[in-house]
């Protein structure tokens, strides 16, 4: 059987849950293929992994596809995975009384310059017409620096955001999943070459992945347990992640849908804020060749 190598940007990130579910529910096997999951350190690394030929299908934002095409790595988004930054929040310590508008002139932690959290911070600056300093502290530095008071606020990803609001250490002052207009934040991406030479393999892979999404929606308990295990977190937080993130993921993944083009364009526009210069037209980063047919468990 053919093997599809799935590249995932972080372990505690919903794509991992999807891929793991597909593996555990034997959805890839049902499609007659095998899957091999590799976890990278971030989106950019995942993209490099695919470009280096170490991954066949990955999950990343459109901006990287666009930048990659300018750098000689030809790939496209074949399936729409999410239309928002679910679970991402602008957070302040619980004791803090700061509102979003009060952040003017303050310091806000992001993971890295140019990363997803940076884009959201830049969007905040633009949208709320305020100005604050973005401080890149790395994924591991977000909460420690927030709690230690080195920064006034932080852009926190899920499920970390749920975890610290649950523990009472921090609270959300802006929920990006609702605040930012819907845009294509992440999709499944393959190299053009693979799409041409092995379209069957790609089709089967997206089938299995969207089969997994369908399965997760239908099986709350199993999924919450899986999340708790994968993320090493208590079930309450896993449940929050399930309700606020997993349930909001795209179920069809169809890139031919009417709203997709605009959503991709918006996503690229946001990336421009973060300093992305290598922009190609929205239609060049997507491929409508594959419409997922969710595998039945």
């Amino acid at each position, binding site marked *: 059987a053919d093997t599809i190598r799935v590249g995932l940007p972080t372990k505690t990130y919903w794509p991992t849950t999807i891929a793991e579910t597909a593996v555990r529910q034997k959805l890839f096997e049902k499609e007659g293929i095998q899957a091999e999951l590799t976890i990278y*350190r971030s989106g950019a690394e995942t993209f490099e992994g695919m470009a280096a030929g170490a991954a066949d299908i990955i999950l990343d934002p459109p901006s990287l596809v666009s930048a990659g095409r300018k750098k000689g790595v030809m790939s496209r988004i074949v399936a729409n995975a999410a239309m928002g930054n679910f679970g991402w929040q602008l957070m302040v310590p619980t004791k803090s009384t700061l509102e979003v508008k009060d952040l003017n002139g303050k310091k806000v932690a992001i993971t890295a310059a140019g990363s997803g959290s940076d884009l959201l911070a830049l969007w905040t600056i633009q949208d709320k017409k305020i100005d604050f300093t973005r401080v890149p502290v790395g994924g*591991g530095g977000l909460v420690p620096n927030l709690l*230690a008071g080195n920064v006034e606020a932080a852009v926190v990803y899920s499920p970390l955001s749920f975890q610290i609001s649950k523990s009472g250490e921090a609270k959300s002052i802006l929920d990006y999943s609702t605040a930012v207009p819907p845009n294509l934040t992440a999709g499944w991406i393959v190299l053009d070459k693979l799409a041409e030479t092995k379209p069957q393999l790609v089709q089967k892979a997206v089938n299995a992945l969207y089969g997994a999404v369908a399965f997760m929606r239908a099986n709350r308990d199993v999924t919450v347990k899986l999340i708790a295990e994968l993320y090493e977190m208590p079930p309450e937080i896993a449940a929050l992640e399930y309700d606020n993130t997993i349930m909001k993921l795209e179920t069809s993944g169809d890139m031919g849908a009417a709203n997709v083009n605009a959503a991709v364009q918006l996503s690229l526009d946001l990336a421009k804020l973060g300093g992305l210069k290598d922009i190609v037209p929205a239609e060049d980063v997507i491929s409508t060749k594959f419409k997922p047919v969710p595998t039945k468990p």
Partner: protein
Amino acid sequence: MQGSLAINLARIAIILAVLALWEALSRTGIVNPRLLPSASDTFATLGDLLQRAAVQKDLMVTATEVLTAFALAVPFGALIGFLVAENRYFADVAKPLLFFAFSIPKSIFLPMFILVFGVGFAQKVGFGFFSTIFIVIMSTTTAVESVKVEHLTVARSYGATRMQTAFRVYLPSMLPVLLEALRISMIFNLTGVILAEMYASRDGIGHQIATWGENFQMKQLLAGVVMVAAIAMTFNELVRWVETRCSHWRT
């Protein structure tokens, strides 16, 4: 022998003192216990983690990668280092280049390793090797340069071959410097492999540690760090054991 007992006691005392300080800082809240979980919590977590089959497997994977990379890098690096020190021409050509390569942050090249080896055992070992070899080369070169001329003259007068000189004169006189280099190399090697695992991986303890770090799971993170440190310390002790066996002629 009673001296070494005293030293061991002193060492244990220092370790206990550090642990006590750690525990106290955290318990009294001088340091936010969320940022620095107490020693007892960390070790409890460590105990839990070690029970897990997945963690055991990760440790095994990492250990195998580290040892393989080390077993490749040390002899190979020592050989090059020796050639550089022995052969003036080779030294003139290679020394600046090697030194130069050493001062570049290696993590920049991680994508290249994925490009060449894909993601997996070979890539981790390759990067571990790459992170280690330069320090091995450089330390070997220095060690060679500190060998006493009289000893070489004596060996030459007995018609020692190149190999004999290497193993019977260079090696023993270089031993203290070399063993120290071995230690440092091991640390570089370990860091290299862990970095590679953090970067892209299917298994290995580095991959776990990165995840814990990004999710603010401080207990697990510290426990993971303790694990890695324990591996390195075990190795350290091994080197030290060799050292005490080989250097008793020094006083």
